[in-house]
């Protein structure tokens, strides 16, 4: 096999890995949108907040330490202990569940039956609020996640695959972190699907996504389900935040990954979990391949920044409901 061809495959593999992360962010949007019709603008900030919380708990940071110090003139910064990773993850999940409950109790319970645009505006407010709370709680400096996730490229993969080509081919270059992220995402998605298909709460979740009135009539509490989906979206945000945070550090720009999920949603449809996953993969592979075949050689490179949005635009024109979304039918 020619090394050109093999390099193309490597581009696709790396595209898939990136796509998994896009899919993960998009998944958070889909969960909430399906169950409550809310387009949650704050999903990206939730990822940032979850990652900040995880790092803060692991390092034994005192939450709101700047605030406390400013008011009481104390010099608190750290508790002086370090929390093991698995415990810190569990505690972060608890924090995200509490967050979900607060959001439901104090924001969306009062907005039931409002126009979608009003719900959307509320989530914009929520995004800024959460961003501020994150800063206040854990500080605004860039943090690194010390979860012990492997960095660097996967040597073993290079060694195994280098035999495929001639002497000028050194094997596929794939980052280990990307492989881990892809595996974690796969486990998470499988767990979500099993949960939705085979548990009582999952069935209730699907029921609420389908018809609120009917769900109420069989004894499902809408509030409980909404807290549940926000919690699940929080867990998805945590995983996305950790994986992106491990790549580029936990900092404000992490919240912008939400923007990357938008084209994924336009491709996959706002209401489809498989759509979010396949949409993410298509965008991931598409932008890498485009850069490799057309963008780099003819357009001066850096096309990854806008390719996804172009693709989304095309979809909006020709198939506005996305690949898997519910068909838009207007009755006259």
């Amino acid at each position, binding site marked *: 096999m020619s090394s050109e061809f093999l390099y193309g495959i490597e581009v696709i593999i790396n595209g898939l890995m990136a796509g998994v992360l896009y899919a993960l962010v998009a998944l958070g949007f889909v969960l909430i949108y399906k169950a409550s019709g809310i387009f949650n603008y704050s999903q990206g900030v939730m990822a940032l907040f979850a990652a900040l919380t995880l790092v803060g708990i692991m390092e034994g940071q005192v939450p709101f330490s700047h605030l406390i110090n400013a008011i009481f003139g104390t010099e608190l910064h750290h508790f002086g202990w370090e929390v093991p990773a698995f415990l810190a993850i569990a505690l972060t999940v608890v924090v995200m569940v509490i967050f979900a409950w607060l959001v439901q109790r104090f924001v969306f319970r009062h907005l039931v039956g409002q126009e979608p645009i009003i719900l959307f505006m509320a989530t914009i407010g929520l995004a800024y609020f959460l961003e501020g709370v994150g800063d206040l709680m854990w500080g605004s400096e860039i943090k690194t996640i010390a979860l012990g996730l492997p960095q660097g490229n996967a040597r073993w993969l290079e060694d195994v695959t280098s035999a495929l080509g001639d002497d000028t081919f050194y094997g596929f270059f794939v980052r280990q972190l990307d492989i881990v992220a892809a595996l974690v995402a796969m486990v998470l998605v499988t*767990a979500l699907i*099993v*949960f939705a298909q*085979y*548990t*009582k*709460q999952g*069935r*209730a979740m*699907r*029921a609420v*996504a*389908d*018809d609120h*009135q*009917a*769900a*109420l*009539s*069989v*004894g*499902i*509490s*809408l509030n409980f389900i909404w807290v549940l989906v926000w919690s699940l979206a929080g867990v998805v945000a945590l995983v996305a935040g950790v994986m992106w945070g491990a790549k580029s550090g936990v900092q404000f720009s992490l919240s912008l990954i939400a923007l990357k999920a938008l084209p994924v949603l336009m491709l996959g449809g706002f209401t489809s979990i498989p759509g979010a996953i396949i949409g993410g993969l298509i965008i991931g592979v598409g932008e890498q391949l485009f850069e490799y075949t057309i963008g780099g050689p003819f357009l001066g490179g850096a096309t990854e920044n806008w390719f996804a949005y172009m693709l989304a635009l095309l979809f909006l024109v020709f198939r506005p409901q996305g690949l898997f979304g519910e068909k838009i039918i207007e009755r006259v």
Partner: protein
Amino acid sequence: MKDSVESYVTDDGRTIGGVMLDLRNITLRFGGVEAIKDISFNIREGEIRAIIGPNGAGKSSMLNIISGFYKPQEGEVLFDGVARPPMPPYQVARQGIARTFQNIALFEGMSVLDNVMTGRMNHMNASIFSQAMWFGKAQREEVENREAVERIIDFLEIQKIRKTPVSRLPYGLKKRVELARALAAEPRLLLLDEPMAGMNVEEKEDMSRFILDLNDEFGTTIALIEHDMGVVMDLSDRVVVMDYGRKIGDGTPDEVRGNQGVIDAYLGVSHD
């Protein structure tokens, strides 16, 4: 005899017990409009109770009050002799009151089987972890619930469409699936909002048979709204007649048939 709360046996051998649901002086307003004006009636254990009346009489609103979708401004609802505090519909459902809707409210994206399974929601208590891991209590529960659901599917003769997505079913079958889902909850009181609307004669006969059978075999108490007078008179033990939000008649089908107010309401006498 039928006005007392003593239980009695009907001509066809069913036992009608004491009062299960008692509605006292219910008034419901939407803004300035009084949809229901000071209505009282009761539903007794084991009976088929019909609510009839012209369009806009407030029949559906009455059913919505019983199932918790509407909250009356005045009056109280007694269930098993205990005054029921205002509660959301899902809590009413958990008390054993199931219902169907006038404009069918099914989970269109799910299969018939899944739809009926949602009716079992309140018969599942296993923890979320044992459900996900599929062991112990969860496994036993799932098997039991599946058996219960299959019995209902057999009973309503919808075996052939078990796996079909509901969105692909014709109207008459959707109505039947909705009934199956309500039945799956094993309710003590079943509320049916126009179960036969839009059906042809054959479908109506089937539905009447199901209603009679489930009342007879399972002893389910049924309150139903229906426009087809022939059906109502054949099915029900007692009938409430409403017009313009008021109760204008209450009694056995024969009593109601002879009631002058009812005849006026149906034949159209000017209100002055």
